């Protein structure tokens, strides 16, 4: 017997066994983990999320919205007594205080809550509405498609921030209107993305096969087409979260988002910009918060794209 004979058998058996072990989420996590930057991004996102969830435990909301004028522009790590519930309480300003003597770290922590909620709800809204419209347009085609896609084109023709500005200006600045404005402006991207995906997926034979099995349109769209379109949508959504946090910050900066004294990163930046030379820490830390969250979401998005890309599989 030739010495080579046993080898192919052993080689053929091993990969089959390996492939069998890792499927679905496990395989996805295995590939995602290889991208160290993406994992770092995920850690940062998780930290900010935890911070947002436990904001009330870390800093009292009243404390970060109440003026402490005597401590205005307290430096980083400064220890002073503050007025709190009619008493003098010792307090450490870990990241200093702003022009009203409010704790910057405290405001960043509570601002995270606003930003995380905005990031999540606006994108969830945009993905559901935009994805749904895109799937319908892509699957049915014809005049339904024309109406949806041309509508999308009109939305796309207006610059995002201008459109959001118009919505907030018309409905008045409030948290709900801010969510609505950012959510609506995020829709067109998902309509286009999902429609394009559906067009490629619906031509595939398994869709025809599903129809040959007697499946209804609804079942074909929801169970066969949409799940096969999800990879780019998930990636776009993580990038979109960063984008909508930024939009909210921009709107707040312009005075149309979260209204003072409620803490939000955008209005913190807006308040602090007058003191950029005299008290740069009032500007730097909220700026860093915005930057790190957006960077983290982008890294996670990149990692997801790599992990979900079928061309990089196996």
């Amino acid at each position, binding site marked *: 017997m030739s010495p080579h004979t046993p080898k192919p058998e052993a080689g053929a058996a091993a990969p089959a066994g390996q*492939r*069998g072990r890792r*499927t*679905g989420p496990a395989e996805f996590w295995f590939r995602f983990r290889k991208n160290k930057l993406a994992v770092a991004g995920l850690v940062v996102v998780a930290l900010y999320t935890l911070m947002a969830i436990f904001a009330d435990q870390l800093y009292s909301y009243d404390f970060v919205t109440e003026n402490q004028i005597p401590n205005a522009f307290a430096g980083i790590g400064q220890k002073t007594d503050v007025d709190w519930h009619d008493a003098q309480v010792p307090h450490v300003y870990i990241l200093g205080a702003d022009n009203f003597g409010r704790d910057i770290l405290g405001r960043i922590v509570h601002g995270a809550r606003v930003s995380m909620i905005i990031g999540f709800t606006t994108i969830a809204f945009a993905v559901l509405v935009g994805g749904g419209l895109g799937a319908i347009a892509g699957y049915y085609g014809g005049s339904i498609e024309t109406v949806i896609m041309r509508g999308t084109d009109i939305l796309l023709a207006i610059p995002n921030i201008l459109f959001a500005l118009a919505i907030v200006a018309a409905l008045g600045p409030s948290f709900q209107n801010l969510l609505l404005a950012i959510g609506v402006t995020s829709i067109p991207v998902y309509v286009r993305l999902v429609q394009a995906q559906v067009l490629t997926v619906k031509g*595939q*034979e*398994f869709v*025809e*096969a*599903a*129809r*040959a*099995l*007697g*499946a*209804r349109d609804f*079942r074909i769209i929801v*169970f*066969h087409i949409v*799940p*096969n379109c999800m990879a780019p949508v998930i990636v776009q959504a993580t990038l979109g979260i960063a984008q909508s946090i930024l939009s909210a910050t921009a709107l707040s900066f312009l005075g149309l988002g979260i209204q003072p004294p409620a803490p939000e990163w955008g209005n913190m930046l807006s308040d602090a910009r007058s003191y950029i030379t005299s008290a740069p820490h009032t500007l730097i830390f909220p700026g860093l918060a915005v930057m790190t969250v957006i960077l983290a979401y982008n890294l996670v998005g990149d990692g997801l794209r790599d992990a979900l890309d079928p061309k990089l599989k196996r």
Partner: protein
Amino acid sequence: MSEPQLSVRELVTQYVTDEEVVHAVNGISFDLAPGDSLGLVGETGAGKTTTAYSIMGLLPKPTGRIAGGAVLFEGRDLVRASEEEMRTIRGNQISMIFQDPMTSLNPIFSVGDQIAEVLEIHGTSGRSDALARAGDMLELVGIPRERMSEYPHQFSGGMKQRVVIAIALACSPKLLLADEPTTALDVTIQAQVLRMIKDLKARLNTSLILISHDLGVVAQVCDKVAIMYAGKIVEYGPMADVFKAPLHPYTEGLFNSIPRLDVDHDRLSPIKGLMPDPAQLAEGCVFAPRCPYARELCAARPPAITECRGRKVMCLMREGLVEDRMGVGDE
């Protein structure tokens, strides 16, 4: 002979676009008794797949349309059935196997779920029953039940096609349409899959329409064969008879294009020319431009379906209008 289960009568299917009308199927008729198997053979573009899609009511919208004729399935006309009725028939009473197993399975669902899906769609069983039955179906096609939770990419091509067969047969359909089920597979797997289709067909008493461009494949599985050319059935009869002595020049041409073990060939003699453009069909016999026996009359007069030795043939030579030079001796 028992009542035909499926009777296709004068079926005409067209694809209508703004520029032209493509005559894909031009008045074909055939009957299929329960448990029968029919092979539809022809070149690319002969209208084989369109025939299958017409039966299933799956013609691409809005271009495809059935312009005439009827498809009677157990006495019910499928051409006039509503979409709702068709849905209850598809996958349940008539199933279809597609050409390419690589793409006819959904890549993101486990094969067990995909087999169970058809059972759920037709409400024959609940979720857990459906999954149990999916396991049975997998075993029926020779795949261990344990592999139910695996995904299509973990199977080889031949195994995928067996999964597709399992899906098609899950609801014990009365009729199975197999559209080139082995074209995407290599020869050894092809034989395996064909044997399986044949076995299961016999066990489940399913009738079968097998579409193929490969006469060898049809010979392995079918009792009857219909040779299609330019949307017409040019010869239709029992498989063995057609193979032994073709009555239509096109059938003869097809056989001459295949090497035979018992004959010494220097060169094979393929059929010269190409299929006519189905958007512009000639007036007379559609095969006349390529037919080695064609006479002037052939280009002018369309042949009628003629009974000849228990077969149906569309050729003027069989109608006795043109001299028979094919050398088909009288028996």
